[in-house]
């Protein structure tokens, strides 16, 4: 039985898993794809055309670090030629001012720049790389060339105290939108979770601080704050629903409903090398698996909220409950919620041991750093 679906609106083009940074919060899978398996420029061009034919409006170039692709200009041109809006999600490395100009000339519509903190030391500890100064230079070039910019500050226990400094960086930039996004726990972030989750007190203070900032900057900069859903009452409607709003293509060409879907056992992902995007979207097993409501268990099955949050995240349900069809355990209505509470209790009871006054250090042995695949 084919479940009627809407068409995807966004294509997440994971161009490569190569990256000059080694962020401990990276949401890429633990198994990174090697350079030799990457899709070619021509492959991506075909994918962009198929996506546009399917109704996709926007291509989000991401990775790894998309700027490590030597053909990034051709990729931008290819996506624009296919009729897509092109958004680049990047660390800002490797980049100089003339390369940035070339990206814009090639048709780049929007630039999203990540930040790991307000200061070099913590940024270096979290990313395993000296990148902060470069990002500040990129901000200057973006301002000079009037490029549409969103800043993404990745927030966690070790840098949440630097919110005022991060906000100051945002305010002195030309960004019209700033996202302060608490880490979500997939991939490397899941492995490093216990070092990343903020305390309840930190979270409360941050919400208070950013709420005030939102009001003060209303009409000038859109300030958004994403809290870790472990602390929420209800889960997020992940990706806007499984196989609903977007599709992700991995560096080697596998089509996934989201960046974490590979953790779910028993799903076979089709490759753009073998099937058309339309076929994959409309009828492939992986995309069909969690569409509609037939797969839902109680309490989702009869819950009033099910069309609102869709039972939360399938990948998180697998990671925390061992069952991708279960209610997302962060939901207060999930019978597995006590598991999440136990994790939070550990984080919140450690007290002084979590004090961010601990000096940032590149040699902190507690982190699992994301390597650069060959």
């Amino acid at each position: 039985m084919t479940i009627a679906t809407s068409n995807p609106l966004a294509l997440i083009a994971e161009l490569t898993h190569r990256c000059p940074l080694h962020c401990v919060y990276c949401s890429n899978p633990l198994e990174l794809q090697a350079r030799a398996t990457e899709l070619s420029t021509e492959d991506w061009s075909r994918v962009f055309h198929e996506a546009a034919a399917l109704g996709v409006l926007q291509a989000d170039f991401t990775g790894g670090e998309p700027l490590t692709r030597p053909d990034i200009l051709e990729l931008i041109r290819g996506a624009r030629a296919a009729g897509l809006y092109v958004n680049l999600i990047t660390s800002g490395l490797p980049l100089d001012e003339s390369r940035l100009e070339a990206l814009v000339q090639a048709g780049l519509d929007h630039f999203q720049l990540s930040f790991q903190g307000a200061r070099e030391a913590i940024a270096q500890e979290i990313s395993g790389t000296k990148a902060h100064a470069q990002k500040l230079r990129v901000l200057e070039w973006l301002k000079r060339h009037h490029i549409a910019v969103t800043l993404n500050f990745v927030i966690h226990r070790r840098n949440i105290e630097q919110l005022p400094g991060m906000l100051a960086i945002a305010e002195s930039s030309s960004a019209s939108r700033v996202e302060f996004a608490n880490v979500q726990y997939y991939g490397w972030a899941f492995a490093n979770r216990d070092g990343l989750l903020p305390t309840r007190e930190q979270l409360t203070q941050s919400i208070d601080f950013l709420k005030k900032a939102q009001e003060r900057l209303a009409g000038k900069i859109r300030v958004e704050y994403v809290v870790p859903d472990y602390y929420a009452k209800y889960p997020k409607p992940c990706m806007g629903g499984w196989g609903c709003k977007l599709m992700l293509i991995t560096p080697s060409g596998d089509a996934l409903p989201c960046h974490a879907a590979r953790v779910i056992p028993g799903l076979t992902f089709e490759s753009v090398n073998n099937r058309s995007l339309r076929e994959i979207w409309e009828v492939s097993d992986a995309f069909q698996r969690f569409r509609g409501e037939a797969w839902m268990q109680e309490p989702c099955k009869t819950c009033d909220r099910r069309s609102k949050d869709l039972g939360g995240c399938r990948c998180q349900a697998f990671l925390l409950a061992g069952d991708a069809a279960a209610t997302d355990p962060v939901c207060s209505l999930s019978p597995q919620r006590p598991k999440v509470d136990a994790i939070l209790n550990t984080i919140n009871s450690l007290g002084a041991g979590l004090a961010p006054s601990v000096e940032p250090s590149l040699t902190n042995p507690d982190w699992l750093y994301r390597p650069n695949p060959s």
Partner: protein
Amino acid sequence: MSVDLNSHPRLAPGCRMNEKTQQPRTLLMPERALRLNGPSLEIVERCDGQHTVQEIIAELQQLYAKADPAKVEQDILGYLALLQKERALDFVP
């Protein structure tokens, strides 16, 4: 924020229409997209930094000569305010 009739609305950085050959015509922005048809398309096409708000109103009143001019003006100002809220427009003096 009220709209200055003598200002020249222009699509903000990162905001553009899709190609003329693409259907449906759409206004693409970083966070969302807006379908454009009829009047909304006529308005956005004139947000080129060359037309004043007043000129856009006058041109559309001519284009939609059968409609009540006051309603046309009201609809245009309402739509420009919507685009302004989406931060899709810069108003150049």
